[in-house]
């Protein structure tokens, strides 16, 4: 199993915001135990999905040269369950980014309806103040994550312009409307 909790990006504005979707399926094994009688997407994995969306956004803003690690869940409000058959949409915006860290604001949608907020902080761990050393290769942004951005124009866009999704035959570039 691959530790990827987003299916695809549908929008990516370098240094500004990103939107990814995740389709929840009963075929996913974790739902069988969570819970057997009432399968629902664990909130922790919804947070992970937002962290992957926002983490890619933060990583790309420094051209994937930094190792971006989730450091703090500043806020997570998810007041209703997400069930098999639902589509999650994660929209993340960078609120602050510096050499050391970044903070993001995230909105969670279920079937195109806003259901929650997830605000996160990420550390650029090579810039930590304790001077700790980490392996040289970037173990955060591996090929399987970078492939999610294939087809996006990742050059910083002119102010106000969005980088649209890649052309995929048979797939709409945006999350399907309900």
């Amino acid at each position, binding site marked *: 199993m691959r530790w990827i909790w987003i299916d695809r990006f549908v929008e990516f504005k370098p240094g500004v915001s990103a939107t990814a979707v995740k389709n929840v399926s009963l075929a996913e094994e974790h739902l069988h135990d969570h819970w057997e009688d009432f399968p629902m997407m664990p909130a922790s994995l919804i947070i992970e999905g937002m962290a992957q969306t926002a983490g890619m956004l933060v990583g790309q803003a420094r051209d994937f040269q930094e190792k971006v690690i989730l*450091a*703090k869940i*500043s806020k997570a409000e998810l007041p209703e369950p997400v069930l098999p058959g639902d589509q999650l949409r994660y929209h993340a915006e960078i*609120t*602050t980014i*510096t*050499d*050391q*860290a970044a*903070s993001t604001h995230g909105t969670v949608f279920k079937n195109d309806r806003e259901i929650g907020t997830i605000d996160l*902080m990420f*550390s650029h761990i090579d810039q930590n*103040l304790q*001077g700790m050393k980490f392996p040289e290769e970037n173990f955060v942004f591996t090929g399987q994550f970078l492939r999610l951005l294939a087809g996006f124009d990742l050059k910083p866009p002119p102010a106000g312009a969005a980088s649209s999704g890649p052309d995929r035959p048979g797939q709409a570039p945006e999350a399907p409307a309900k």
Partner: protein
Amino acid sequence: MPMPQEEVLDKVRETLVDALGVDEEEVTPEATLTGDLGAESIDFLDIVFRLEKAFSIKIPPGDLFPDNILNNPQFVENGKLTQAGLATLKQSMPHVDFSEFQADPDVNRMPELFKVQTIVNYVQNKVNG
């Protein structure tokens, strides 16, 4: 017109409630960020980010909280700040009250230096010049 201390304190309190998930009543001027309010290292960056937005100010790295004193062997000896370390810290951080700390400048006591009032002092200097 200068921003009154009470207004600065209110906004700092709001910032710390959001950043640290503490109750408003806990954020007194004398509360220490780590000991009383439970701040961890990443929270210090979070606090800086939020203060910049709340007060529309720019806080350079190491300006509000120290960022390289402990890594310098000239500034730390046997777990205590040297005279040079203490002097550097005092010079770079006029918003911090060192009166109790300097009698025993044990590096383990450094977190006690950073109180809610420390942030209020810093922001006041920054917004009021």
